[in-house]
């Protein structure tokens, strides 16, 4: 019993760490500027896959591990995802779930920065 719960925990942790690592790589290398539409599309797709596969219970921990830059960039992608409904395999509820958790951690300031920043993703 004990062993079992420890196992689930460690599996959950490694999964959480994996999505954090993947998310971090994507966010740190987010493409900016003109003439990189293809790269932007690929990044958004990759990111959405990660968001979709992260368990809801792990989301807060993953977000807390991100740097402030990472959190701000993630918010930009969430809004970009929400701006294109029916695109790819985006589910609105997944994005809204992440948005809620991210706002709890990074605050409304993070949303304001997404709106002001002209370096769009």
């Amino acid at each position, binding site marked *: 019993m004990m062993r079992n719960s420890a196992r689930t925990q460690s599996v959950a942790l490694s999964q959480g760490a994996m999505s954090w690592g993947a998310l971090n790589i994507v966010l740190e290398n987010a493409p900016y500027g003109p003439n990189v539409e293809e790269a932007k599309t690929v990044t958004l797709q990759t990111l959405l896959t990660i968001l979709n596969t992260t368990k809801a219970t792990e989301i807060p921990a993953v977000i807390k591990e991100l740097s*402030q830059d990472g959190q*701000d960039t993630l918010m930009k992608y969430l809004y970009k995802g929400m701006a294109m409904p029916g695109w790819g395999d985006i589910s609105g509820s997944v994005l809204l779930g992440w948005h*809620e958790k991210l*706002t*709890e951690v*990074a*605050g*409304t*300031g*993070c949303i*304001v*920065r997404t709106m*002001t*920043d*002209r*370096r769009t993703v």
Partner: protein
Amino acid sequence: MAPEVFNLAQTPITCHSFSADHKQVAASLNSNDAQIFTRQGAAWTPTETLSEHDKLITSIDWAPNSNRIVTASQDRNAYVWQQTPDPQTGKMAWKPTLVLLRINRAATHVRWSPKEDKFAVASGARAIAICSFDPENNWWVSKLLKKPIRSTVLSVDWHPNNVLLAAGSADMKARVFSAYIKEVDDKPAATVWGSKLPFNTICGEYASPAGGWVHAVGFSPSGDVLAFASHDSSISIVYPGGPAIYNIRISSLPFVTLTWTAEDTIVAAGHDCQPVVFSGSEAGWQGVGSLDDSTSGKTAAGARAGPGSVGRLNSVAFSTFRDADSRGHTGSGSTGATDTKLLTVHQNTITSVRPYETHGGRVTKVSTSGVDGNLVIWDADNVSASGVVGRMGGMRV
């Protein structure tokens, strides 16, 4: 000590400025007139109205030593008001003097220089007018700082040496200019910002980190450090000698005004409705708390929602939807959905924060005015860390 709260009007207070003895305050109540209030006991009563502008007054500054008031307005004019005896009755009255601003857009912000022989008017004409008195014609003339400003200038602040001027602009930059006027100024000594300072020298240009308008700028008391707050919910502190820029991203809504209270402390306020204190040194800066201790001294509102909720988010519509969403409640629930009162002292955006009282080089009290029509005097040392930490950590949306 609890902050002193005065409700001056039901309209927004665009700006305010106290007289040197703190017995009077000039404020623009979102109108074309500047209203002078006089303190009578615990209340402020309107005593005089300065009417000359024909559009909204955007900024007022009351010079403490020369007792002159300068007002700037969207009608593209500024007036300097001086108390002069009426020739017939001998009663003292405020008389305006025209300022030749030569700008073709609204004037947005005005500040007297420390020696009170010049003032700077920020404007939407992508220029800052530096005004000095011309005794021959008995009016104020201006010289324009233009390059390289690319959008509306939103705020200005003078360096203590009376020559350097900081400006924050909607082109997302904070800049430090030389506003040296040959006829008025002595040759300034070299500072960390530079040594040769002819008019319109650009001594520094700093961009806001995530591209927000720079709403407020301020030199530290020594003039060696510059702070600016921008609309990307951040505050930046610049050490030009370093060169180091410390940027603090805040988790709440953007600040629109700030003031230094000591060489190591800044008070900033804005859309979050509470004055927030930052402190630090050349080694680093961080937010330390809020002057608005919303957890104590409040009645039911504070106790019910606790320190975990953000002032602005405690609105009727918001809690109604939240209850409907999370608990399936409709109508007024136990969370008091009919209560529209925010948990902060100010009930709306703070438009201006200014030093009020100084002791031994430290500002001990600051005053704020807000869109809620309130004028509040805060004890600058009464920082409540728990309030702001709880709020930032436990933000609910």
